[in-house]
């Protein structure tokens, strides 16, 4: 027993091979879940389709070719700091001929324990006629009563000129959302004119809107030198 205090693996030798295997598998499971801050293994009811995933990965890689340095101004991860890359696909809410509502959900574990380094919203547009098409984008934060407050998240304008993917920096918006303890990012897209306005591809699986984010595990006692 005294030796086991010093050598955690010593006890394994005394176990039968089957028991030893069971202990190690249990240890591996526990270790992975605790490092991912998950209380239990996630139950996946609606896995993202392969088409949507591959398109998203191609888009991200097209913007950041292999071997490129991180964007200027982004802090490098320190020793032992855990980084996450997150792909969140939109769930479509109510929509009209002029507006679309998108929802992105982030888990409590990520929202509560990470800081956002970079986040980009990817939207695929089909443009029926050439020219500039202005689109208003509103970020809506849920209020405590379960409703939404459009004022909470800010508003921005996007100009769409041709078919294809458009990107928007949403790093600060998600960081603010996490700071307020939120887990759901709601986005309302509104086109100006009804005729000849660009269409957002939301139902085509390989053109599903998504957010690609880089986050870092928040260290409780970070000391900064001024």
């Amino acid at each position, binding site marked *: 027993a005294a030796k086991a205090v010093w050598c955690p693996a010593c006890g394994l030798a005394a176990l039968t091979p089957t028991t030893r295997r069971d202990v190690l598998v249990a240890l591996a499971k526990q270790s992975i879940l605790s490092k*991912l801050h*998950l209380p239990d293994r996630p139950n996946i009811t609606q896995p993202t389709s392969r088409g949507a995933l591959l398109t998203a990965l191609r888009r991200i890689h097209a913007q950041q070719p292999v071997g490129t340095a991180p964007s200027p101004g982004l802090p490098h991860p320190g020793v032992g700091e855990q980084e996450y*890359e997150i792909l969140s696909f939109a769930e479509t809410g109510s929509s009209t001929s002029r507006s679309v509502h998108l929802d992105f959900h982030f888990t409590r574990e990520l929202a509560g324990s990470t800081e956002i380094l970079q986040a980009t919203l990817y939207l695929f547009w089909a443009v029926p006629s050439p020219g500039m098409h202005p689109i208003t984008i509103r970020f809506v934060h849920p209020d405590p009563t379960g409703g939404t407050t459009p004022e909470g998240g800010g508003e921005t304008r996007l100009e769409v000129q041709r078919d294809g993917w458009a990107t928007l920096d949403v790093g600060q918006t998600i960081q603010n959302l996490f700071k307020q303890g939120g887990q759901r990012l709601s986005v309302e897209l509104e086109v100006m004119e009804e005729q000849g306005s660009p269409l957002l591809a939301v139902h085509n699986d390989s053109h599903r809107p998504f957010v690609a984010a880089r986050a870092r595990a928040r260290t409780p006692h970070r000391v900064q030198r001024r």
Partner: protein
Amino acid sequence: GIDCSGDSRTCCREEFFVDFKEIGWEDWIIQPEGYHMNYCAGLCPLHMAGIPGLASSFHTAVLNLIKANNADAAVDSCCVPTQRRPLSLLYYDRDSNIVKTDIPDMIVDACGCT
């Protein structure tokens, strides 16, 4: 570090692979297919303390000094990981988002006596 062989009794690295399919985790972990966990096993006689792997470390030097100067304070040498690397995971989280992360110090690459 030394990898364990059939008749080895001294400190070595035992390979251990957890297949995610076998434990029913392949539905939420997209990549890799398993976890090369590995662990350290075997004996560390006192004369082997500090080798291999930690011979030049400050802690080994301090422990050896304590042992040399005070027999009562001597501690048993222990077979522990001396080199580890991260485990890269691509997985679905509870909201079906796809997350990629490197969990540090998860794979035992080498073992040695403290």
